[in-house]
């Protein structure tokens, strides 16, 4: 960087001295082998260890006329699967979903959603809190009203597990980060330069995945060099970022993107730059990216949690709480990876349906 | 007004003033005497406002002498001028609408009581005294914003005279006043003259200047072109001194051209608009100019607007060229050959920020095309020929509209209306706020248009003008035609006739047309 750029950077940096910066590279060394623990340090319970309801319990719940509210942080394919899992489980248990809302990642909006939902007097609230700090105040009225709270992915600071809320069901974000690193290493043959397009905002889920990916690459794959790292806040900008990265690092072998829908722009940039061999790794199921994967395009693989299963589990835990049963308070869903080899299987397991026709046709066509 | 030579209050001689490369004043002389009203007249840019600003202490002259009360004076600020006894009433009111009359008059100089607060009683009393001296009847406690414009003008003058000046400058004092308010103003001015105040009276209304001003000075291009006793100069001489050219008054035609073989351009029967117009019948033949006179609220503007298609709620029958029509929008009116020149030029007439050409060709773009695109050459030629034909003083079709004087802007608006060769031209007070030369030119073009077979319906508060150009005048009151004057029968519109018609005990709507 020449002096002009340097001066400009220093100047801007001074201006931004007060802003809260998200550490993009792990400041302390991350212990990749440590087990995933909950916010209060509790050990995690695998999702399969939650017992199903007995026949009597099922009858009791079904006849109880209970209601539930679903309050999510955002919307999209992943949330659709989560919600579908919860709704299916609730239907089986005779619990009615009275309202569903998404807060567009705005904590103020979520606080309003909670107030509105409480007016309907639900017995259960399933939620992905936008902000663990702001959530403490926002969810308090629900606790006071005796509503059973079950969280997914994010917890809420200061809440007592088991008392204030039933449980947190989460994908294994640390594990997903590590798995993404493994996918990347596989895809580019263990060595080479990669670019990292991370999420530049405070959001527990993505921050952990990004951190663990980078730590895993550094610690486990010394042959792989992170040649460029750029954050984004608006999803629509990943295409420009990827294009700029490629312009400055023409020999990139792979690019990591913070989540699936953001990866679509990256793939378009690669196509425009004429780089069919650069591999892309991201997270979560997405029809368009999976089509690219099936067509032997840039998409190499994604690491997944299981939103459908998480939804079902949340509903189940809530039902247990209504019945007065004790439940584990920190439940994790194991990491899954999807590459071209197992697209069909992953879709069937996670979405309960076959992948779209285009994907099947592309799979059948094979790679040249 | 006192006879003989009164004491000289103000004398300026050989005043020169330059702003950068522009010479605003190039050797101006003026003498204002006590108890005399001295009219200061000139076109826009002639130097009137620069001259009074020098007298008022806003500018200092580059050359020349300024004497107040026989002593040489040089003002560094308006305050010094005020202290020397010179007061000015500007065109824009300096009154604060939310305060009372008394508070406005004494603004900044309120009488205070022992503890330093405003002494309300004394405030009111002194204000009442000032107003009484001027013969102005108004409640000192009334909030100024609620008063009619004419009364506000008098309050403004009371404010200026409250410091007891020896010279008072009035800038366009009758701009927003009705006839009766002008009379009240003149009464106040006469009172001031009796007290020995010298008055400089700036106005475009030459009729008024000739009425109230003993002496007159005409400026043109920064020089004095005429000065002396008003009675000694004819109106034409004054106009020529102002403009440098002879602009003859538009003479009325003795009788309207005989067009009985052609159908009337427009006919109205039972024309009514809720609360505005009541059962008006009207018929206008080709080549006729029909005038509409009446006070504010008489429905004269509603009449025009409803014919122009701007009042969809209007009821009644309308025929254009003999065929019944129902016009519900200005676009529809235009398609029937009706063009409209609105009253508020600034808000409804011109497009500021766009060129003269854009303003001129507003309604005719569709006709200036060549293969779907605008024919730039034809457009340029069209505007240039309009500039020539209407005598529009502009540097060219590309000039920004707001740089033109009011009179020239109005010429563009009229040129635009005529560009579509309408069969009926509706004009709502087209000559307000325009200098006398442009007015005459506009009326001349209107006469040409009528001679060529066009018909016009014109609303105007300038009764002399209206009476001069219109072959027939309808007097409207409260939405009805109370009287029709026919020039051919020798009935010429005048102030007194209007007054009589509006207050006649048995005024009834007659048949017209």
């Amino acid at each position: 960087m020449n002096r002009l750029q340097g001066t400009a950077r220093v100047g801007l940096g001074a201006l931004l001295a007060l802003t809260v910066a998200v550490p993009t590279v792990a400041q302390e060394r991350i212990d990749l082998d440590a087990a995933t623990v909950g916010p209060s340090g509790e050990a995690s319970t695998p999702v399969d260890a939650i017992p199903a309801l007995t026949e009597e319990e099922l009858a009791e719940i079904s006849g109880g006329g209970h209601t539930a509210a679903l309050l999510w942080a955002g919307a999209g394919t992943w949330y659709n699967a989560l919600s579908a899992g919860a709704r299916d489980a609730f239907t089986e248990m005779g619990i009615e979903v009275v309202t569903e809302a998404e807060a567009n990642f705005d904590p103020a909006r979520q606080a309003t959603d909670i107030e509105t939902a409480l007016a309907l007097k639900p017995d259960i609230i399933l939620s992905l809190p936008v902000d663990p700090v702001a959530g403490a105040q926002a969810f308090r009225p629900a606790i006071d009203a005796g509503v059973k709270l079950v969280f997914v992915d994010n917890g809420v600071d200061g809440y007592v597990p088991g008392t204030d809320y039933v449980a947190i069901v989460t994908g294994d974000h640390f594990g997903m980060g590590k798995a993404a690193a493994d996918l990347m290493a596989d895809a580019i043959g263990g060595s080479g330069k990669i670019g990292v397009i991370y999420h530049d905002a405070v959001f527990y889920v993505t921050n952990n995945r990004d951190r663990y990916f980078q730590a895993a690459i550094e610690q486990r794959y010394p042959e792989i060099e992170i040649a460029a790292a750029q954050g984004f806040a608006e999803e629509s900008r990943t295409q420009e970022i990827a294009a700029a990265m490629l312009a400055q690092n023409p020999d990139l072998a792979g690019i990591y993107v913070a989540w699936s829908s953001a990866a679509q722009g990256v793939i378009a940039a690669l196509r425009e730059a004429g780089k069919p061999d650069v591999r892309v790794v991201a997270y979560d199921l997405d029809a368009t990216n999976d089509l690219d994967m099936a067509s032997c395009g840039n998409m190499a693989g994604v690491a997944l949690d299981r939103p459908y299963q998480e939804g079902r589990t949340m509903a189940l835990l809530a039902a247990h709480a209504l019945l007065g049963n004790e439940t584990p308070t920190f439940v994790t869903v194991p990491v899954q990876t999807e590459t071209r080899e197992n697209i069909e299987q992953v879709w069937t397991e996670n979405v309960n349906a076959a992948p779209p026709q285009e994907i099947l046709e592309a799979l059948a066509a094979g790679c040249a | 007004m006192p006879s003989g030579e009164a004491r000289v209050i103000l004398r300026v001689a050989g005043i020169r003033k330059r702003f950068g490369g522009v010479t605003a004043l190039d050797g101006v002389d003026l003498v204002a005497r006590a108890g005399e009203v001295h009219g200061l007249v000139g076109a826009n840019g002639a130097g009137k406002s620069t001259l009074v600003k020098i007298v008022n202490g806003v500018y200092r002259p580059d050359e020349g002498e300024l004497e107040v009360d026989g002593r040489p004076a040089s003002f560094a600020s308006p305050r010094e001028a005020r202290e020397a006894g010179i007061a000015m009433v500007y065109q824009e009111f300096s009154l604060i609408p939310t305060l009372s009359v008394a508070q406005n008059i004494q603004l900044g100089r309120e009488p205070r009581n022992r503890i330093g607060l405003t002494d309300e009683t004394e405030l009111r009393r002194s204000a009442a005294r000032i107003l009484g001296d001027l013969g102005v009847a108004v409640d000192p406690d009334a909030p100024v914003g609620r008063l009619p414009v004419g009364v506000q003008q008098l309050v403004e003058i009371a404010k200026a005279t409250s410091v007891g000046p020896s010279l008072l400058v009035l800038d366009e004092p009758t701009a927003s006043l009705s006839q009766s308010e002008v009379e009240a103003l003149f009464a106040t001015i006469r009172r001031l003259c009796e007290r020995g105040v010298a008055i400089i009276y700036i106005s475009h209304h030459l009729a008024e200047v000739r009425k109230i001003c003993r002496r007159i000075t005409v400026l043109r291009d920064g020089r004095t072109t005429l000065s002396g006793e008003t009675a000694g100069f004819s109106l034409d001489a004054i106009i020529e001194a102002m403009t440098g050219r002879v602009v003859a008054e538009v003479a009325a035609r003795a009788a309207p051209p005989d067009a009985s073989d052609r159908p009337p351009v427009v006919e109205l029967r039972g024309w009514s608009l809720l609360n505005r117009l009541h059962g008006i019948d009207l018929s206008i033949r080709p080549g006729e100019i029909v005038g509409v006179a009446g006070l504010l609220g008489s429905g004269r503007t509603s009449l025009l607007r409803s014919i122009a298609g701007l009042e969809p709620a209007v009821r009644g029958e309308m025929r254009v060229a003999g065929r019944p029509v129902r016009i519900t929008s200005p676009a529809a009116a235009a398609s029937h050959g009706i063009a409209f020149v609105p009253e508020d030029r600034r808000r409804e007439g011109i497009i500021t920020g766009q060129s003269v050409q854009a303003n001129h060709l507003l309604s005719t773009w569709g006709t200036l095309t060549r293969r779907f695109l605008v024919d730039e050459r034809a457009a340029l030629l069209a505007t240039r020929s309009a500039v020539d034909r209407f005598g529009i003083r502009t540097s060219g079709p590309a000039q920004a509209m707001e740089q033109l004087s009011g009179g020239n802007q109005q010429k563009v608006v009229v040129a635009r209306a005529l560009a579509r060769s309408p069969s009926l031209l509706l004009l709502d007070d087209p000559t307000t706020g325009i200098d006398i030369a442009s007015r005459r030119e506009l009326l001349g073009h209107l006469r040409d248009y009528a001679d060529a077979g066009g018909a016009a319906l014109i609303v105007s508060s300038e009764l002399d003008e209206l009476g001069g150009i219109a072959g027939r005048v309808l007097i409207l009151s409260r939405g009805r035609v109370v009287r029709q004057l026919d020039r051919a029968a020798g009935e010429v519109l005048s102030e007194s006739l209007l007054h009589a018609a509006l207050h006649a005990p048995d005024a009834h709507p007659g048949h017209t047309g």
Partner: protein
Amino acid sequence: MPTGDGAATPVAPVRPGARWRFASVRPDNLIVYIGFLAILAFFAITLGDRGFLTPENFANIARQTAMVSIMAFGMTFVLSSGEIDLSIGSVVALSALVVAVLLRADLPIVVAVAGSLAAGLLVGLANGLLTTRLRIPSFLVTLGTMTIVVGAARVLTDLEPVPVTDRTFAFLFGSGTIGPVPVLLIWTAAALVIFHVLLRRTPFGRQVLATGGNRAAARYSGIRTDRIKIAALMLGAATAALAGMLYAGRLQGARYTLGEDDLMTVIAATVIGGTSLFGGRGSIVGALVGSLLVGMLNNGLLLMGLSVSEQLIARGAIIIAAVALSLREGAP
């Protein structure tokens, strides 16, 4: 008979040909062009070694700014007519999804494109009718349609993205290159010419400017101002629909989040380019320059390696400066 003005008003003679042809592309806002060149020079000097001056990078900028440029052309018409359209971002999402869904149903490209365009025009028509008939300010109307349309986009595929597999469509509408020239650049250039001629050289364009300059004056002169405004709003929505299709072609997929960040960029580009927010003054070429200025700014700040926060602050500051200079230049 009154004489005309005897002393001839000084008017330059008409020189046919060159004079009037160039008059129609005379830049309204010289300062914007100077600013653009200044920023270009700054980045060229400081980022010459970081890939700013490469043909690939310029091709990137051209591609990245294409959609915004095209929408800015439409917005120029809307603003010039005295209205504003806040719903363009939502129309982008809707039209992208519509074309993707229609292509997925194996309909011919022409039908899919027509359907997508129709969806956009329908929104524009609704905006226009609500604004002119109900006399609600277009700001409020389009604020409402913005939400309604994005809701419709979400419902259309239940938030699921729709891939676009039709290679011809993808080539024609965003991903293709003809030689070294990206197809998006051709779209931008074509739109530039068409919209510039429409605004500056047709009676319709003059009437749009008149309507925005002074609605009353235009109306009294016989211009059907309601129809003009409706046409302008439909034109704006049409450009948003085209942008949506280009997104779908470029990304080879459509999702309901497309276009959600574009509104502010489009308005900034249009205003920087010299179009007045109050109507009556508009420049298509200026809108292009404004769009390129913003795109180049984004690109340069990115290449400089600034973090998101730093980029946002720098971008905002420079845009404020650019708009302020642009407004001052254009003020009478």
